[in-house]
Structures are given as structure tokens and as C-alpha cells.
């Protein structure tokens, strides 16, 4: 198994290290955020596949409810999902050996530096660079103060 972190670092991981993590699938979630927040420091949110975006909204809501939780994405993702994961509140992405080999380790290692790294609403995931709207607002306030 491999783990990609929000800061772009990348390391092999023994799956036993995650044994204490709480595992949740968005499709079977009963709505009790409090319960998840109480059960542990780490939550693995499993995507049913590369087409199912529920995990993003689930992570966003959970992170807003309990910012201290560490959220880990897993299941059938591609390097192109990394930005989406980190911008919606995930801290780490868990990857199988098979995915990394086929999709190429280099694509995963550079996933947080892919071409589109910020949007109008969300800043870059691995630095303090703000969203496009925030940058414009900043430029505007500097212009006004001058």
C-alpha cells in the first residue's frame, strides 16, 4: 500500500498501521456525524469507484463538522482525483500497489502539482496559495489601499 499526503509527500505503508482507523462508506452512512467524530482520529472513506463522487461531499461535511479528524480516501481513484480529494477535506489518499503500478508512480507522486491546482473557489492544496477569487480580492484591496 502507498499513502499520498496533502503536502505531496509519498510513502509506502503497512496496512496494519491503519488498523485503528474507522472505515466509512458514504452510501451506508446513517447521517450521524457525531458518532463518527467520537470514534477516532482517522477515518477511511471508501469510494465505490472512480465515478462515484459521494466521498467528496461526505468528506467536506465531515471535515466541517469535526476539523480535527484525519480523513483518508481509498478505493479505485486516479491521480486526477487527488486535487478533488484534498480540496474537499481529505488529508491522505490510500493506494493499492496495483493502481500505482498501472497508473504510474510518477503520476501519483506529482498528483498535487498537476496542471490545474486551484479553482475560483478553492486554493492550492499543498501551499497557502489562495483561490482565484481570494487572489482577486487581495489584489483589489491592495489597489484600494494604495
Amino acid at each position, binding site marked *: 500500500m502507498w499513502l499520498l499526503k496533502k503536502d505531496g509527500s509519498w510513502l509506502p505503508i503497512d496496512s496494519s498501521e491503519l488498523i485503528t482507523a474507522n472505515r466509512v462508506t*458514504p*452510501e451506508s452512512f446513517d447521517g450521524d456525524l457525531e458518532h463518527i467524530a467520537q470514534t477516532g482520529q482517522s477515518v477511511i472513506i471508501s469510494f465505490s469507484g*472512480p*465515478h*462515484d*463522487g*459521494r466521498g*467528496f*461531499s*461526505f468528506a*467536506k*461535511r465531515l471535515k*466541517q*463538522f469535526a476539523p480535527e479528524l484525519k480523513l483518508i480516501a481509498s478505493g479505485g481513484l*486516479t491521480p*486526477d482525483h487527488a*486535487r*478533488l*480529494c484534498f*480540496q*474537499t477535506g481529505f488529508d491522505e489518499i490510500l493506494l493499492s500497489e496495483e493502481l500505482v503500478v*498501472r*497508473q*504510474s508512480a510518477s*503520476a501519483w507522486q506529482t498528483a498535487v502539482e*498537476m*496542471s*490545474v*491546482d486551484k*479553482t*475560483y*473557489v*478553492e486554493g492550492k492544496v499543498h501551499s497557502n496559495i489562495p*483561490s*482565484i*477569487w*481570494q*487572489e*482577486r*480580492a487581495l489584489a*483589489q484591496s491592495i489597489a484600494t489601499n494604495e
Partner: protein
Amino acid sequence: MYNYDSHDQAFVEARSREFRDQVERRITGKLSEDEFKPMRLMNGVYLQLHAYMLRVAIPYGTLSADQMRKLAFLAEKYDRGYGHFTTRQNIQYNWPKLIDIPDMLDHLAEVQMHAIQTSGNCIRNVTSDPFAGVAGDEWIDPRPTAELLRQWSSLHPEFAYLPRKFKFAVTGAAEDRTALKFHDIGLKVKPGVDDNPAYEIWVGGGQGRTPRIAVLFEDNVPLSELLPKLDSMLRVYNLHGRRDNKYKARIKILVAEYGLENYRRDVEEDLALQSLEPFEPAVAEYHRIAKDFEQSDLTPLPSASNGDNPPALASWIKQNVTSHKVPGYGVVSISLKPKGGIPGDATAEQMYALADLADRYSQGELRVTHRQNIVLPSVAAKDFAALHEALVKQGLAEDNIGQLSDIIACPGLDYCALATARSIPVAQELSTQLREREKRDDLSGLTLNISGCINACGHHHAASIGILGLNRAETESYQITLGGSSNDNASVGGILGPGFAQSEIPGAIDRILDFYIGSKQEGESFNQTYRRLGKAAFREAVYVAA
């Protein structure tokens, strides 16, 4: 028009590089087709029946002359010399090679265009009123809101893999020219307080297998609350929309099955949790964008006398020109529905000509309508004759805007991998027949829309006369629906009866029109006559006579 700043420009260029990289990884097998498919769809690339298809976004249907020239150039260089304007105000190329598409995107980025989210289960290109900014009945220009939505939704990390596609329409005028109530979310922009707009939010409209008219979600939503609210509306849909059956995955089904009140409550609960920080710049953004849309000064002109116009010109002005908010100007609709032609198609030569005419007569601006026509938004009345003459040379002077022969048709089985029957040949035959009939009968105000399958891309549910092509035992069969409408009193057409063979369609349409014209009362529209007399009367007229 909205003009990109360096951020917008960098954004589309980055997206273009990203897609180039995705194509490369697909070709070398680092991405499987299953993984790549949603990525290419999110960039408007379909695999159709015969070839790939690229759908390019024309945000809220607004184009500059230079952008139109670029579209013509792409048609020539990478396609077969033509493009197809769609009911969502976009353009489709039917024959690009996958390996050429990254280059096409680079060309588009040069003129501030892209193909972002023109397909896929994400927030699609936002549509709007093609007469925005020039219509006399407008409360507020919808384009700044539409552009704000474009920016908010572009590559939105959370809403890239929704249960199903998601379509927004925005209007700010009394007359709805956007089919607002057939959208997943429709926004009506109205004057609010302190120079900020406020919104009516309509939710849960759609066509497809289960047509639904949108319902009012909330009224008087201030600009400052709009995006957080839409974000929560999408989040609840993303979490709870059905994913087990693609025909039940649109938000219309969630709203219908879960109930509007429950949906509203969930949205409010989500809003209460939301961090509003990312949306704080939105109001200032709106006003920054709105500056770009401020009408460049048009000097009012004396209205030109049309008394001595030759009949062809006079008829074209009467049919294709709508009143402009500035005296002495007109909003000119250019029909892409020539007699016997393919609805919405334009050759590269025609696109170049349209760009030149926009430069010469309409401040370099064009619009695409959801009825698959082109609009020159601000033409001085004194230029009508010269413009008409130029359009005649290009085969673009058909005087049938708003007539029955102004047919909407999807690409159908001539192109589409999902279609069950052809649409275009039916439209071609009917437009030939109806252009003749329109010389005798007044068929303005009636609409005829044709879809080649139940997905209803040809808006057949929303037409006075709708035609739906089906596959019956490996033969094309066409079902007729009557009484639909996409305006403010939106309604879904009802199925008239058993299907027809393609060869029987012209006769059936003639009998419907004969019966309507013979039965209508003074001032009655087709749908009014249909509702007064009922389906059975029309059915008898159409089938008994057959």
C-alpha cells in the same frame, strides 16, 4: 462581453495541459477507458456512433466575432468543414480525432474558450437568455450571474462526479427564453437591495424519460447567499441522489421522491454547517464581472422607414427582428433552419461570414439560442437591408424565426450512440413541407421539436408538436406528442397515440395542422385549442383520416 483576466487565462491553459496529459496517459494505458471516460466527458469528448465528438462551451450563448472565427477555423482544420449548434447554446464537432483534441483546446484557449463541463455528470455549461442585455423586457442582465456560476462551477472539486448531469439556466427578463423550468436549477434574476440582485431559485425541472416542471425552491435569495445555497443544494443532491438507476438519478427524481420540504430542510441543515469563507469574495466578483457587460453606448437612432422594402426583406424583418431596448436598433435572429436543411448546422464558410457580419453590424458580438439559431444582438435598423443581402448570399436569410419550420432537432441516429431513430431527415422533410405551408397559414408561435430517443435532447416534450423517434423491432417509429411548452407556462406534451413510420409523419403533421386551423377560435394558440378540444378530438382527426 466578459473578458478574461490573467487568472481566467491561466486557468483554461492549465485545463488544456491537464487534458493533454490525460489523453497521453490514456493512449499509453496508464488510464483505463473506464477511468478516462468521465475525464473526457468532463471535457466534452464523446465517442459517438462513427467517431469522437467534441462539444465546445459557449458560456451563456455569448460569442465574440473572433471566437466565431476560431470555431470556423477548428471546423476546417480538425473536422469536416462544419459545426452543429446545440440546444444548450454550445457547438459540436462530429469528426475530431482524439489525438487532435488537445491542440483544438489550445486554439480555443487563445480566444478565451474551452470545453470544460460540456458533458459528464457535473455542472454543465450554464445557459441564459440569448437576448440578454438588449431585450426590452429585461429586469436585470442575467450574464454576470451566469459568469459567476461558470467560475464557481468550473472544475469544482466536489461536484465533478454527481449522480447525473446538472443543468443551470439563468434569465432576468419577463419572457422566459431559456426553458428555465426544464432545468435542474433555474434562476430568475430580479432587482434586490443596494444594487445587488436577488434570485428566484427553481429546482427539479428536466426532460428525458421522466419530464418534470421545476418547482419554486426559494424566492428573494440575496446575491450574498446565492452561492452557499447552491453549494448546499448540490451537496445534498450529491449525497442523496440515486445512483442505482441512471434514469432516476437527476435531481428532479430526488425532489419528487424525497419531497421538496425534506430537501429544503436538508439544504438548510447543510448550510448551517458550511464555512462561508470561500464565498466571501463573490459579491465583489459579481460587480467586477458586471462591469464587463455594461452596454457600450449605443446612440439612439431615428427608426428607419421600412415602407419601401422589397417583400423578402420586409418579411425577414417582420419575422426575424425583435425590438431592441435602444431606439433605432433591432435584435436580429439568423435562422439555422433553412428549408430542407439540417437544424443548427453551419459550415465554416458561414461561420466566418457570421463573424464578419457581427464585426460590421453588431459590435463584434453574437449569441447562440437554445432553438439552435444565431443572434446579432445590436443591429442598427438602417443596416437591416445590407445585412439581409449578405445573409442571402450565405443561405442564412430564411425568414422563419418563431415559425413552425424553426424546428429543434437532436443529432439522432445519424450521429448519436444513444439514439434509437434518426431525427435530422425527419426535420429536413418537415421543414420543406412547412415552409410551403407557412406561405398560406400563419404558423408562428407553434413549435416543433424532434428527439431521436427518450433522453429528449431535441426537447420534444416541450413543443406544441413533439416527435420522438423510437426503435420498434429494428425499424424507426415516431411518436407524436401535443401541447408542450417551454415558456413561463411550461407544460409537458401528451402522447397522441400509436407511432408512425417515417413516411407517414408528413401526412400526420398536415392533419394535425388542418384540424387546428379548422377548429381554432379567434386569438387562440395551438396549446389553447388543444386543451379546449382535448386529445381525443386531435387523435380522431389524425388517425381516423389515415
